[in-house]
């Protein structure tokens, strides 16, 4: 199962902000639901999300059950050098996910 879908523009202008979009497969289980037998389903949401560019964090998010399932994030990053954008996230259960995308700076 793919963790996420990422989109960055094909090429970006040096020094200018470029748009990053990511949608992550995750139920963001609130902890307030119960199953058919009435048992509470424990909370499991993505807690931390970090986007790194050339190894340095450029955007981070701390999320909660107040963010919808299959979280979608769209944000901007300043283009510096061609390289890798990496995305990492951790949820309540300790499970980690990651994704990456190449950035071409012209």
């Amino acid at each position: 199962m793919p963790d996420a879908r990422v989109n960055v523009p094909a090429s970006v202008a040096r020094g200018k902000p470029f748009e990053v979009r990511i949608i992550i497969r995750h139920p963001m289980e609130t902890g307030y639901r119960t199953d058919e037998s009435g048992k509470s389903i424990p909370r499991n949401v993505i807690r931390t999300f970090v986007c790194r560019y050339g190894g340095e964090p450029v955007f981070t998010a701390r999320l909660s059950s107040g963010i919808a399932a299959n979280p979608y994030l769209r944000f901007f990053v300043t283009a510096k050098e061609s390289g890798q954008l990496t995305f990492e996230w951790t949820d309540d259960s300790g499970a980690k996910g990651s994704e990456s995308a190449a950035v071409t700076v012209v």
Partner: protein
Amino acid sequence: MLRTLRAVAVLAVLAADPATAQQHTLPLGELRSGVEFVGASVRAMQADDLANPGFLWVESGEKLWNAPAGAQERSCASCHGDARTSMRGVATRYPRHDEAAGLLDLEARIGRCRVERQKAAPWARESDELLAITTFVAFQSRGLPLGVTIDGPARAAFERGRAFYEARHGQMNLACTQCHDGNWGKRLLNETISQGHGNAFPAYRLEWQGIGSLQRRIRACLFGIRAEMPPPGAPELTDVELYLAWRAQGLPLEAPGVRR
């Protein structure tokens, strides 16, 4: 423009299939997809492939399509090659009558292939894997008009499906036709009643926080009118799917759709 294209598509299908002399309760020129009855933000989510959560399942489905399975390690691709070509148009013809198995919807067809051809362990209805691969296969027909056949062996199932659709069900004693033929466009609490077409399924439903099949949507409607829900895969539900597909013929397939 879109309306004209749709009307032309609908009339073309009608001209090609004489069996559609059946009385349509919704005039064919008035068919409107569910996407026209949702709010602007849901419509926007469906329109943008990057924002549409359903694509997480299209991608999973593609991986499954290429994954070896079963005793002989055969993937769907081993027989069907590139889905972009081999599966194009397929979803628009389902549900479809099968000689051996009777009426099958797309999920059931894929499920049978998996067990009988790939000799792999079956996937349950509404399981993530079956939903993913069904979404991926349906997606290959996105934009194409629905066009099922109700001739010959499919006729009996079609009639049963239509009877179910027109019968009253549940504590609320409501028939599907009362809302979706008789009162579409009117409000039910905050929502606008749609015409009840299934052309966007499998769809990402916000209420489900995930993707689900048309059968799940039909079951949800039955729950809503406080009727007993047949289990997923039940023949009654497949019959209704056939009736719905016929009723929606000409509407473009929208999978993966986004709905409330």
